[in-house]
Each structure stands twice: as C-alpha cells, then as structure tokens.
C-alpha cells in the first residue's frame, strides 16, 4: 500500500506538470481528469487516461471530470489554431431568412439586440433581378482593410484566417469601422449592459466578452467553440443547414445537419462567389447563388420601419440576465 501511495504521489506531480504544460494545446480534446484531490477515494472503476505528453496511466473514474481549456487570452489568441484555415459557405438557396443564426449568435455572445454579428439582409441587386436573403457575418478577409488601418494592432489577422479584436488594447478610434466596406463592425458606444455572470468570465479576444465600453466588436467565427471541437453557433443553429463551416486545408465543410462536403466540390457544383469580390478584400466567406430555391423570396416592399427607439432604452428593454 505504501508503495502504491508513493507511486500515485509521483504520478500526481507528473500530471499536474503535464496539465500546466499542455492546457492550451491539446488538453481539451483528450478530456482530461481531475486528480488533484488529497483524499484517496477508492472505487471499483478505473479509467485509462492520456497525459498531454502521451503517457498512459490509470485513475479512479469518480475522480475524472471534463476539462476544457479556457480560451487563450490576448497573446495566445493572436496566433490562432495551427494548421487551420477556416472558411464559411452560405447557401443562399437554402436560407429562408428566419434569423435563427442571428439569435443563436446573440445568445452565445451575450450581445445587445441591436448588434447583429451575423445579420440577415434582404437583398436585390437590381430591379429586374430576384430578391434573396443574405446572411452576412464578418468575412474574415485575407486582405483585410480593417486590420491595415488599426493604429495599435488591436485588430489582427491570425494564421488560421480569423480576424479578431483585442478589446483590452483597442483605443476606440473607429478607423476599422470606417475601413470595413461590409459594415461588419460595431462599437460599444455606452456602458455595455451585461450580467454579473458575463462580467465574471475572464476576457478573451476569442469570444469578445465581457465587452468593454469604447471598443469595437464583431463576428469572430467562434474560435473558442472550435477549440472545443464544436461548430460556430450560427452554423449549428441554422435549421436549414444553409451555413457550412470548415477548414480549407482539409477541403471539408460541415453544416448543422451533420453533412460534410468537400469545399472545392461545393464551390464548383454551385458556382460559388464571394460578396463584392472586386474590392479585392478576399473574403473567407463564400456564397452559393440562390438557384432553385425551396423557400419563397423575400418581399422587398415589406421593409420594416427603422425602429424609432432611443439607443439606451433599446438596450435596457432586452437585457440578457
């Protein structure tokens, strides 16, 4: 017994070190365990687990708990996920303008209701052309006009293609908002309305909350979800499976119906295009033209009136608590 106790102690030390070393990298995927407890509660079930550096050993099952690495803060979030190039494909033929994507996104990011990180537009390019619904997230351009003009490198392009904002560095000059041709960025004009639970979460540029007054925010492609092996929330939340998301390097995209397609095939078969291609921003979001639609086209005459609500009041009425 003595012998085995010694062994577990050394294992425990080893595990702790391994945990510290490996958290940001692979820990979340392996589903690590909690073995810190001093009490040696014995149980019948043993589980075999991996440490981050690949060692195998056995622990009590009731000591295990799911481990998710917190999204990296600031410096870590600037680098991005190695070996990935994230892309989104939005099938306009499948979009019926239900705005579920917007709602999911707002719920997950604790967004004020007037800020739509992914916004569904009713578009009609010319009078003789058909109208269609057009969900528009941030395009995470490969030639981003917004990061170019940032005076303090608060908004940046990562190696995985994602453009993020560091709200702890942003000085609120709004140059990026002027530079973005897609009106994708929002500004925190006043004190953001946030509940205690939200403000208690440590800040990470990967999810953008808790938000700070006087800084810019926008769609972030949900890298904190990707790190957990999940899809961005708008992709998951689309009841039509109209939004595909994946890795360009793998040439694979998946939608909410769990269907995985080859990206190049999807682009080729549907003659995909990118919005305002001639601006040269090289968006990472592709659109499939609204051909053979399954849903009625939007009524362009039915443009909702602009809401005559005062800025502050609107926030208060729909607080997310």
């Amino acid at each position, binding site marked *: 017994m003595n012998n085995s106790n010694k062994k577990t102690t050394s294992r425990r030390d080893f595990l702790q070190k391994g945990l510290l070393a490996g958290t940001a990298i692979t820990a979340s995927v392996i589903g690590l365990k909690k073995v810190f407890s001093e009490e040696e509660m014995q149980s019948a079930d043993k589980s075999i687990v991996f440490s981050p550096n690949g060692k195998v050993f056995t622990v009590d099952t009731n000591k295990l708990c799911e481990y998710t690495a917190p999204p990296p803060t600031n410096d870590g979030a600037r680098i991005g996920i190695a070996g990935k190039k994230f892309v989104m494909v939005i099938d306009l033929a499948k979009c019926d303008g239900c705005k579920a994507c917007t709602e999911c996104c707002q719920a997950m990011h604790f967004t004020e209701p*007037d*800020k739509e990180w992914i*916004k569904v*537009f*009713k*578009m009609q390019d010319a009078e003789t052309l058909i109208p269609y619904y057009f969900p*528009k997230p941030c395009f995470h351009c490969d030639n981003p*006009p917004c990061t*170019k*003009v*940032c*005076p*303090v*490198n*608060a908004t940046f392009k990562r190696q995985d293609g994602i453009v993020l904002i560091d709200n702890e*560095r*942003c*000085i*609120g*000059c*709004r*140059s990026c*908002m*002027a*530079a973005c*041709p*897609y*009106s994708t*960025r*929002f*500004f*925190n*004009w*006043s*004190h953001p309305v946030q509940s205690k639970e939200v403000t208690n979460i440590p800040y990470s540029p990967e999810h953008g909350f808790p938000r*700070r*007054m*006087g*800084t*810019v925010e926008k769609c972030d492609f949900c890298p904190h979800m990707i790190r957990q092996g999940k899809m961005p929330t708008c992709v998951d939340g689309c009841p039509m499976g109209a939004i595909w998301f994946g890795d360009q390097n793998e040439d694979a995209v998946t939608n909410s119906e769990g269907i995985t397609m080859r990206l190049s095939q999807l682009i080729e078969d549907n003659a995909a295009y990118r919005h*305002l291609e001639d*601006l040269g*921003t090289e968006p990472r979001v592709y659109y499939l033209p609204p051909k053979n639609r399954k849903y009625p086209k939007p009524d362009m005459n039915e*443009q*909702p009136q*602009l*809401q*005559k*609500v*005062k*800025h*502050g009041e*609107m926030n208060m009425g729909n607080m997310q608590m």
Partner: protein
Amino acid sequence: MEITEQQYNRNEVEVLRETSIRPLRQWGTKVKIWLAFLILVCGWGLFCFIYQLQHGLGATAMRNYVSWGLYIATFVFFIGISHSGTLVSGILRITKQPWRMPITRSAELMTFVSLLFGGIMPIIDLGRPDRLHHIVLFGRLQSPLIWDVICIGTYFVGSSMFLFLPMIPDMALCRDRLKGTASKFRLWIYEKLSLGWTGTPMQHKRLELTMTIMTIIIIPIAVSVHTVVAYIFAMTLRPGWDSTVFGPYFVAGALYSGSATVILAMAAFRKFYHLEKYITLKHFDLTGRIVLALTLIYAYMNLNEYWIPAYKMAVGEGRLLNDLFSGTYAKVFWILQFGTVLLPIIAMSFPAGRKPLPLIISCIIIVIGAWVKRYIIVVPTLLHPYMPIQEVPWDWAHYFPNWVEWSVTMGCFAGIFLVITLFAKLFPMMAIWEVEEGMKIEETRRLGMEIFKKNESEEAKVATTDGNK
C-alpha cells in the same frame, strides 16, 4: 551712398514699437469680459466632455453607421486652418515679399493654436482616451492614423519654432520696454524667451539663417500634414472617400480656408490694435488675390472630385452622389458649391471686392463653408455604405450632432480664441523687428529711387544742354 541708422526716420521706429507694445501695457475691461466669456464657454465644453467620458461616446449622436461625426469634421477643419501660418510666413518669406512683415505673427499664431486644438479633436473622439499611450506602446507605422500623429506632431513642433524664432528680438524689446509696467513674472518670461538677444549683427545673421532653414523645412511638412489627414479617409474602400485626388484636394481645401483665416486674423488685429498704419489696403488687396487664386484651385479640385464619378455613376458612388446632388444633402451641397466657392471667386475678382469689408465677408463665408464642407465629406459617405442599411434603430441611420458634440466643439473654438487673446495680451502681435526691417528696405528703395531719379534728371539736363550746344 550709405544708408545709416540715422538716415531713416527714428521717429517712425519709435511709433511702430509703441503701437505694437501699447496693448500689452494694460488689460482693459472689455478684454476681461471677453476672457471671462471664453473661459465660461470653455468650461462648459470641458464639463460636457467629462459627461461624455462618463457615459461613453453614446452621449453623442454618433452611432454605428455614422461612427465619425462633428469631431472628426472639425479636426479636419482645424488642421486646414493651420495652413494659414505656413502660407504667409513660409511661402511669402521664400518668395521675399516685404509686405508680409506686419501680418506674419498673427498668421503663425493661427497655425499654432489651430494645430493645438486640431490635435485635441481626435482624442476627444476616441472611445478610450485613457488608452492613448497605446499609440506609443503598440503604434503601427502602417496605419494612416499613425502617419497623422507623426506629421501633425512634427508640424506642431515646427510651427511652434516658426512662431517663436521671430519673437526672440521682440521679447528682448518687451523685456526692455515693459520694465515697470509688467509684473516681475512676466518680465522674467520675456527675459528667458529673449535668449539673451542684444541685436548684434551676428545674432541677426543667425536668426535669419535659422528662419530660412525653418521655412524650407516647414512647407513640405505642411503639405504632408493635410495629405495624410486626407489619407485617413482615402485609404478606405468607401464610396466618396476612395479617391486618388483626396490628398491634393484636402491640401487645396486647407489653403483655401487657411488663407481666408489669415485675412480675418489680420483684420481683427488691425482693428483692435489700431494697426491701420501698418496693415493697409494694399495688404487686403494682395492677400485677397492670394485667397482668390487658392479658391480657384479649390474649385478646380471640387470639379475633379465630383464631376469624374458623377459622369460614370458607379453603383456605390452613384448612391452617394444622388444624395448629395438631389437628396438629403442637396441644399447644403449646392449652397457650399455656389455660395462659398463661386460667389467669393466672383466677388474677389473685382478690386472693389478686395476692399476690407467685402473681403472680410467673403472670408467669413469661406471659413464657414470650409467647415460645413468637412462635415459633408465625412457624414454622407458614412451613411452610404455598400451594405444596405436595414432594420436598425432609427438613430443609427440618421445623424445630426447633439448638444454634447456642439458644446465640446464650441468649447474648442472658445479655447482657440482664449489662447489667441492671452497671447495677444502678452506678446506683440506684429514682428516689430521684421516690420522695422521692411521699413528699412522701403526706405532704401525710396532713397535709391530718389538717387536714380536725381541722376536721371541730371543726365537729362546734361543731355538737353548737350543738345542745345
């Protein structure tokens, strides 16, 4: 024929020195009331700014579409005004125009003050002014905003020197003349600022050399400043800003409003400081011609800026231009084009239009026009993005500055007048030694002309006598 100190009128110099220094001797009640008024407006502006700091920029009328408004428009306007000093002091100095002497100080002061407040405007407009030091910590040279920080900073240091250098001999004069009337502290300031000036030929030579070097340096800096201010806008992909003519267009606009400001400052000091003897109708006529020339250039730039895209009517530009030509902003747009550009051109083309009163009216119209034009450059473009504006709160899609913005902006205007007034009550508003030098030059010319005429008439006499023989 030597021209010595004694030969030109010592009395004249004495009158000049006294006229320039007299306003510094005492502060009248009118000045005190004026100062009190300015401090009040400034204080209110400051109060509103603190209110804005507490509540965030949401206290202004700016929202997500119009994310730059009155503050940025006024920033561009102030930087434009700052071209006045460079124009008069720099360009007229390098082209050796002796008549510039009495108006250089007021022009350089305008540059200094408008740059000071021009630099403050974007900081007021920041969402996080508390993180201003991030510009130093994380500054990126690729950002147009950093170009602005660098260029405006350099221009501010340069124009401060440009203002200060020709003040050195005058400081010595104040130091000597205001003994007894001014407080000890003020005399100490004059003493320090005069840098031990005694007026030796060596000192004069050095000062002249430094001024020449500064002139050569400051002109390109001034051009760069307004060019990079334009680049903040022109480096974006927005219809209305995405224009290759924007740099020179802004420089022309800056010279147009800056030169008009020179005339206004000149007229104000002429009236309040009784400088009619030195600032004459000739000055109005000549500066009026300069403003006319610059307004013509500006009109030409306007033509390029609007006519070229209007001919093609591409999608994005077309939407914006329709709104400017015949939509929401049509009235303001055409008043600006005809009322503040074409009308002054016509007025100033006639000699009668370059008399003080009509010229001052033209210049007031030009300065106000330049300010409103900045607003028309900034705001309508932001309201015409590529993506349609749909289903947003009403105030996102409409912009007019609210009371906070007006108050803070007016506070800045009051600040400009405050600094000018204080400066003018502490330091002479004419470069006395330069005007003296100008008088010397004119005296020399006059003497030279007399000698020339004398010789000519003698020669003619000889000729006639020769002919008679």
